[in-house]
């Protein structure tokens, strides 16, 4: 059995963190009766959304009837699987809970009519239903979302992850450096499943693991790589060296692009150089757009050349200084905002309907005033 299975929580005691979500869930399920709004769990991968349902079910001897993205989920299969098991009682369990996982993975063509059918089932169900999604603001989930109570799951802290890894190693009787667990936890940034998988790759069959064993994950290689690349680009004056700097890097060019962008003004000090480097990035960006728009991959070389060679040759002289290169703030911000963005979009749409104009107009013509008129409502901004 893989560790991720072996160490799945069997009870709420073993379950890691997510205190608010757990409290909400418990309050809901303990008072559940037919007609009550179902829950929609959402949050990033590997933070225990599915695990919570199974842990509770296990603890309370409930059967979990699950449908996930690996199942066809058009209206007839849904009716068949959920509808039929809604009628019968279970032989060995005390009750049932329906789990519709990866609901944002509905494929419009193959899962036709899924949402409508689910909404119907929600109304008639004699058992509680939990939906799970990474992205609850996916437009196809709008109707479902409006009929559910949302429960947010947060990224786990490094500390949480580390502690759970330690428990597993203890159970397996494997010794480990503290650094190893810290590194694995860091690398997975709040994703416990990823961390347990990594741990299994590193530790399975061993008595003891050290930092060196992490090589198998390619961990250090990956992190050093981007810094080396940046160093070459910012320090060299040779086009070939700059071009080759991204050859073997474990990030796709779009990501590298933002790493470079972030550090241009970090390395270069003269405005002439900064402006020139941005010229190159601006052109690289145009090539990137053309690649995406026309699926014209021939243009890839120009995109990568402009962002490497172009930026490298923007400087007059090499800076003989140590620069601490920073990760791209753009990507970080975008990551942080991913979910709230969709939510805002929906609210904008509602406003647009009321004000009888487009969302764009709401934003430019109404919002600035609304913020003045309803100050309290917009305090968080």
């Amino acid at each position, binding site marked *: 059995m893989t560790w991720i299975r072996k160490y799945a929580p069997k009870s709420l005691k073993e379950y890691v963190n997510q205190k608010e979500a757990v409290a909400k869930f418990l309050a809901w399920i303990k008072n559940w009766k037919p007609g009550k709004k179902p829950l929609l769990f959402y949050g990033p991968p590997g933070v225990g959304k599915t695990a919570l349902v199974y842990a509770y079910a296990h603890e309370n001897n409930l059967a979990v009837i699950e449908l996930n993205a690996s199942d066809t989920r058009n209206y007839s299969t849904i009716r068949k699987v959920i509808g039929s098991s809604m009628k019968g009682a279970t032989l060995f369990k005390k009750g049932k809970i329906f789990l519709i996982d990866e609901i944002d993975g509905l494929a419009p063509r193959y899962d036709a009519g899924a949402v409508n059918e689910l909404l119907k089932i929600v109304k008639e169900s004699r058992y509680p239903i939990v939906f799970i999604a990474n992205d609850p603001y996916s437009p196809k989930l709008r109707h479902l979302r409006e009929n559910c109570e949302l429960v947010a799951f947060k990224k786990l802290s490094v500390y949480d992850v580390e502690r759970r890894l330690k428990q597993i190693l203890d159970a397996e009787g494997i010794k480990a450096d503290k650094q190893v667990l810290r590194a694995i936890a860091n690398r997975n940034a709040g994703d416990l499943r990823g961390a347990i998988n990594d741990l299994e790759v590193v530790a399975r069959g061993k008595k003891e693991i050290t930092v060196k064993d992490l090589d198998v994950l390619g961990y250090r290689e990956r992190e050093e790589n981007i810094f080396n690349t940046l160093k070459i680009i910012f320090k060299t004056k040779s086009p070939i060296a700059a071009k080759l700097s991204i050859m073997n890097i474990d990030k796709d060019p779009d990501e590298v692009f933002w790493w470079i*962008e972030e550090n241009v*003004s970090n390395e270069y000090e003269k*405005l*002439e150089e*900064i*402006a020139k*480097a*941005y*010229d190159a*990035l*601006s052109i690289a*960006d*145009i090539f*990137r*757009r*053309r690649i995406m*728009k026309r699926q014209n991959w021939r243009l890839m070389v120009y995109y990568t050349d402009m962002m490497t060679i172009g930026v490298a040759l923007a400087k007059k002289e090499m800076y003989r200084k140590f620069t601490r290169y920073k990760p791209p*703030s*753009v990507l970080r*911000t*975008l990551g942080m*905002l991913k979910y709230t*963005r969709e939510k*805002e979009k929906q*609210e*904008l*749409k*509602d*406003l*647009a*309907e*009321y*004000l*009888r*104009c*487009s*969302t*764009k*107009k709401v*934003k*430019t*013509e*109404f*919002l*600035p*005033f*609304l*913020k*003045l*008129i*309803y*100050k309290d*409502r*917009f*305090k*968080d*901004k």
Partner: protein
Amino acid sequence: MAAKPKEFVVWAEKYRPTKIKDIIDQEHVVNRVKAFLKDRNLPHMLFAGPPGTGKTTLALVIARELYGPQWRSNVLSLNASDERGIDVIRGKIKDFARTKPIGDVPFKLIILDEADAMTAEAQQALRRTMEDFAAITRFILICNYSSKIIEPIQSRCAVFRFKALPEKFQKEFINRIVKGEGLEITEDGIKALLDIAEGDLRKVANLLQAAAAMTKKIDANIVYDVASQAKPKEVEEMLNLAMKGNFLKAREKLHKMLLIEGLAGQDVIKQIYKQSLKLDIPEDKKVELIHLIGEYDFRISEGGDALIQLTSLLAHFALIAKKK
């Protein structure tokens, strides 16, 4: 953003006329419309004109006058700039047109706002849709620029041109709100409103409401104050930073606007353009700046990533400011 629309009362909506006799100005348009209404027979119509001159209002009034209280079930109102994709539009229209009109008017009404946001291709498809459902529907297309509507559509519509409202009528509208809300307003307060709104009644209503949130006694100072508060000052600040050579801070502001507040690149560059006209720098530098803005606007319209393109623009601004 934080709240649901129900919790807001927006005066621009509250004071939107619902009867044809309440419509302000646009006499030449209204008269023609009245004639159509008397016949209970409409052609397809195209309303063109600047924002806030009553186009959408008139369309809704027509709907009410035609169908009376059940107007909602006989009218489909779409906004082309949100409902991208003609397929979506077509689908909705089809569903809508399938059922018979309720009441004695033999057709249903489809109001398509911001029709000039559609591509020429989508408009071609729209034209066909208009033909297919001609027997049982009428369209009112609303746009700012009629020249962005393809000819085959224009020639199928009675075209109505809305003009910016003369001051007289704007004042009438101001008074209507002032009375309705129990406000006081000074002469120069009215003047300030007219000055800023430039004939756009929606803006008038918004300005008044924002001012009234501060005080019930409205004068010019408050109006200008509100207007400047509502105006995104961030662009101005950002430009100032760039012109002072503080590129990093300027870049930060840009990130905030685009990423956190989610402004569109095209709107920001438009703001940059407006602000740079006001900068206190020699004329020839200004021309240089404008030229640059033109170049980057072009790149963004080519599909360039607004963030990277505008950052590059800021870097160049900083450079130009430095060069003496």
